[in-house]
């Protein structure tokens, strides 16, 4: 069924189709509409679940730990400050190997306070042991929801995951989307039947502490599960395409990369703008292409090397800064290439911070900057783009 709806409504409906047992919520802009719509579904009898209003994001995710350990499929969503407040819980969820799925609406982190979009929040928790997949548009965010439950709940994976979607740009946009069919989702996503739960008939201890003789082994097994998720993400993405007819590549997707000399690498809603810019530039004869990162964790190092091996210059475009170094994506990207024979120059841009709009002209300017590397070499490896002249 194709309808024009607000992004947040579409996500709420996708969550409904996944039949969560427990939904735990706390309001924060621009995530709030998702959980409001879910509460309406519950109030109207369209979603049969336990829906709890908790007193903080810290408790929303914490309560899902209890529900998940008791055997429930669980859902929450958050953004920005809420995600930061969850920081401690994020590591705990992944360490306890609980397959919680969360919509992370991307928003900047204070100070200065800003409710608008960038990706500093989720990039800041990249090491927390959660699978992170970034949606290009509302449709992808919808489709990722059942996919991530399926990936996370696989007994070989048991790793939490977040659907990352840009705040306002995707949550508040009205665009036509294909709704998921509840019955088809039920077939695609089997019920969650965990092997280990809190059960008085068979009492088990969860969350024991590990001294130095065991801690490494816990982390090793967690690391291996995240490694296994690479193949699982690709497999579930293929399976989704077979059932629902919408394909997304795998850990990455590419656009106009066949003969691209200038390769852009980015993730999230900016992908759509970059594609538009590429169409324009291609019609002018500029050989530019795009690699869209879908899965940032696990990081698709091998896929990036394969996709980018023939490019002459690579430019990352990202909505975050690792203060004291550069953009996190830029660092990861360069790292992926270091031990390979590929010696393509790589530069990076931080853009769209705190909701600054990025249009086609900005993408063109970054492509122009990247093309200069071909002639003059790297002048600036990392640049915060579009800064007011009075600050320069």
């Amino acid at each position, binding site marked *: 069924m194709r309808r024009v709806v607000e992004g947040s409504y579409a996500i709420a409906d996708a969550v409904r189709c996944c039949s969560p*047992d*427990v939904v*735990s919520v706390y309001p924060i802009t621009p995530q709030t509409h998702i959980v409001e719509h879910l509460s309406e579904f519950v109030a109207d009898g369209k979603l049969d*679940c*336990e829906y*709890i*209003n*908790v*007193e*903080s994001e*810290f*408790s929303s995710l*914490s*309560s*899902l*730990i*209890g*529900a*998940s*350990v*008791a*055997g*429930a499929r*669980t859902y929450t969503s958050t953004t920005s400050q809420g995600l930061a407040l969850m920081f*401690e*819980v994020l590591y*705990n969820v992944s360490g*306890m190997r609980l397959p919680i799925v969360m919509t992370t609406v991307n928003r900047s982190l204070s100070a200065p306070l800003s409710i608008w979009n960038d990706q500093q929040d989720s990039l800041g928790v990249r090491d927390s042991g959660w699978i992170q997949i970034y949606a290009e548009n509302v449709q992808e965010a919808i489709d990722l929801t059942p996919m991530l439950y399926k990936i996370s709940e696989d007994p070989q994976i048991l790793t939490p995951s977040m659907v990352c979607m840009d705040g306002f740009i995707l949550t508040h946009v009205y665009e036509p989307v294909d709704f998921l069919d509840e019955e088809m989702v039920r077939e695609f996503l089997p019920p969650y039947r965990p092997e280990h739960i*809190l*059960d*008085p008939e068979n*009492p*088990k*201890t*969860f*969350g*024991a*502490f*590990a*001294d130095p003789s*065991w801690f490494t082994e816990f982390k090793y097994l967690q690391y291996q599960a995240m490694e296994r998720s690479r193949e699982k993400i690709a497999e579930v993405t293929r399976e989704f395409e077979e059932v629902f007819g919408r394909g997304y590549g795998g850990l990455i997707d590419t656009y106009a990369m066949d003969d691209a000399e200038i390769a852009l690498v980015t993730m999230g809603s900016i992908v759509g703008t970059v594609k538009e810019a590429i169409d324009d530039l291609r019609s002018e004869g500029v050989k530019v292409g795009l690699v869209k990162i879908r899965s940032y964790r696990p990081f698709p190092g091998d896929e990036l090397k394969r996709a980018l091996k023939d490019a002459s210059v690579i430019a990352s475009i990202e909505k975050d800064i690792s203060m004291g170094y550069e953009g996190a994506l830029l660092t990861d990207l360069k790292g992926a290439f270091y031990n390979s024979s590929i010696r393509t120059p790589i530069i990076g841009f931080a853009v769209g911070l705190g909701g600054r709009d990025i249009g086609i002209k900005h993408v063109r300017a970054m492509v122009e900057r990247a093309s200069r590397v071909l002639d003059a070499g790297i002048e600036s490896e990392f640049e915060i783009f579009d800064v007011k002249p009075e600050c320069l």
Partner: protein
Amino acid sequence: MQESLFAPGHRACAGCGMPTAIKLVLDAAGPNTIVASPTGCLEVTSTPFPESSWRVPWVHSLFENPAAVASGVEVALKRFGKTDTNVLVIGGDGSTFDIGIGAISGMFDRGHRITYVCYDNEAYMNTGVQRSGSTPFCAKTTTTPTGKLSLGNPRPKKDMAAIAVAHGVPYVATASIAYPVDLRRKVKRSLEADGPAYIQINAPCITGWSFEAGDTIEQARLVVETCLLPLCEYVDGVLTDVKKIRRKKPVEEYLKTQGRFKHLFRAEGGAEVVAQLQAMADANAEKYGLID
């Protein structure tokens, strides 16, 4: 005798009051019980992987979130139709009075059927005896040391039971390991409550309080007999029961046996503090009608 649901072999100190409290609580709650605990002495002494003292299902997540974790357990049980299972939180006073109080307030507010049990040893004992909101007035801790300008903790103990009552929690009680029959009865009553319950159990800490080994139960009894700790029960916000004291003892009898109060009998100004503590005990006796 029935096997305890809290197995021996845990690493709590000899003379620790906490395991006694846990055994009594689990004994009253029975095997159809799920427990969530915060980080703290109980967690580290009972669950060094791959061992566990818990013969009931048990979950630990973080220091400040057991009330939220238990909330999730309770709603999941409701979802699966398993509403006959007891859900308990058992945590220390640092988690309860201080860092986890927001989550506790939320749990109370939402009306979950959970009994929150605080084993109260009146400081952060797991990290080495730092002051918590539960530390008594002028007790010496490692962050409220005594010195030329200090007689220990400058603030009185926070009244957590009153905070629970103020939330409209249907069952609130204070209890002590020195009165096991009373404690078990309170746990059983809490589990019959139609909503959340809060039980605070005085559980002396041999290292933090610094008293003679073997005196644990005696310490727990003395704080009640001096009226420094009233054992109360509130049902639907109404004080329904207090533990009556036959012969009220002077607070010195309690204070002088503990290292954390030793300075009050040596330092300048100590006598005034003892008098203040006596006044607090007298006020408790009056307010709660503790004397027969």
